[in-house]
């Protein structure tokens, strides 16, 4: 059995760890609030954008833009992988990476893959797997994300697609479902999946359907489509950021609880050992006294 001193040291060590995990928990909580606010602020733009896109797509018809046309066969696939920069957030990054890995395996060996990484963890994974990294961005996920970053990264994706460097572009990100649940998801960015036209809203307000467009609806749509890629990318980044903080909060909560359990167990062991020591001492004294009497 460990000595009293050793147990005491162990207890104070675990207490310190608990302090750290508690602090990290609180930091994650406040960042989570910030990230949620960012998502909240983005919502009106995203909603309006989808509405405009839907109503234009309904009118402009198919073949309005190259970005809408699927390619056959698909040889070069590009994946935008969003992960966090830092660990200590449970299985968060692992889930995202295995999502990307599963997708890669599903596509088979005759497609070539390249990556854009948001976040260090995903980049490290790509490096160890010796995969092609076309671009990486650090210090984006988890912080305040300027829309500019999504625009610049998105523009490169669109350029890559139009120049033929990529046949398809996918986004792997983490959807923030609730505080306790974050789901890794994969979404096709390019070619842009068929846009649902806003027929339903047109029925609600018939006069809305007949906009005058300047320039024409087709030209407007061509201008709007690349932007829809940026919007999707930005949304993915916001969701991933929020998920990261939520995941870290949960992980740190669990760690704090585990520390508490450990401290309880160790204190029990410590008390037992102390009691045993006292009993042994008493026995010695009593034994000594008996011997003297004799």
């Amino acid at each position, binding site marked *: 059995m460990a000595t009293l001193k050793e147990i005491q040291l162990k207890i104070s060590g675990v207490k310190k760890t608990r302090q750290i995990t508690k602090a990290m928990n609180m930091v994650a909580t406040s960042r989570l609030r910030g990230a949620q606010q*960012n998502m909240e*602020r*983005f919502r*009106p*733009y*995203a909603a*309006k*954008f989808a509405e*405009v896109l839907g109503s*234009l797509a309904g009118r402009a018809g198919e073949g309005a833009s190259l970005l809408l046309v699927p390619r056959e066969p698909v040889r070069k696939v590009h994946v935008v992988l969003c992960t966090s920069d830092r660990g200590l957030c449970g299985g968060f990054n692992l889930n995202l990476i295995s999502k990307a890995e599963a997708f890669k395996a599903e596509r088979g060996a005759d497609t070539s893959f390249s990556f854009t990484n948001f976040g260090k963890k995903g980049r490290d994974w790509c490096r160890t797997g010796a995969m092609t990294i076309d671009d990486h961005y650090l210090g984006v996920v988890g912080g305040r994300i*300027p*829309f500019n970053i*999504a*625009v610049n990264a998105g523009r490169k994706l669109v350029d890559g697609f139009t120049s033929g460097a990529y046949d398809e572009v996918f986004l792997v990100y983490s959807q923030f479902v609730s505080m306790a649940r974050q789901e890794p998801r994969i979404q096709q960015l390019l070619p842009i999946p068929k846009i649902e036209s806003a027929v339903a809203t047109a029925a609600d307000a018939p*006069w*809305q359907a*007949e*906009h*005058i*467009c*300047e*320039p024409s609806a087709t030209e*407007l749509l061509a*201008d*709007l489509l690349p*932007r829809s890629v940026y*919007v999707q990318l*930005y949304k993915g980044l916001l969701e991933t950021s929020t998920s990261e903080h939520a995941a870290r909060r949960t992980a740190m909560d669990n760690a704090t609880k585990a520390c508490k359990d450990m401290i309880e167990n160790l204190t029990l062991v410590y008390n037992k050992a102390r009691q045993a020591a006292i009993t042994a001492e008493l026995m010695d004294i009593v034994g000594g006294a008996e011997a003297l009497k004799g």
Partner: protein
Amino acid sequence: MAGNIKLEVVTPEKQVVDEETQMVVAPGVLGEFGVLIGHTPFMTALKIGTVRYTDTSGQERCVFVSGGFAEALPDKVTILAESAERRRDIDLERARSAMERAQRRLEDKKADLDFLRAEAALKRALHRLRLAETRRT
């Protein structure tokens, strides 16, 4: 027709304007246009420039927009911009350094220069500066 029309200017990062106005003037790609209440449904792309509107008290206000889209409905104008700032919120220092950066890039004339992007950056900076200069001190 008298009455107020609602103006909303939204960017991905925040909602910049959400208020009742008497009139809105915005820089469309095919020319500047004004919107009063009861306007025909209308949609256009916007240039880099200034959206001007008259608020309910008759005061004229200005908002910088870096391009985007505008949708006018009989009772509402919605502007979607990648970035937008009210005149009083324009960061002069940032605009000035952005202008210098863009000018340097344009003068360097490197082969890999994305001319359109650099020019757009310069335009944005110049518009911001010009608008900020009309600020009452």
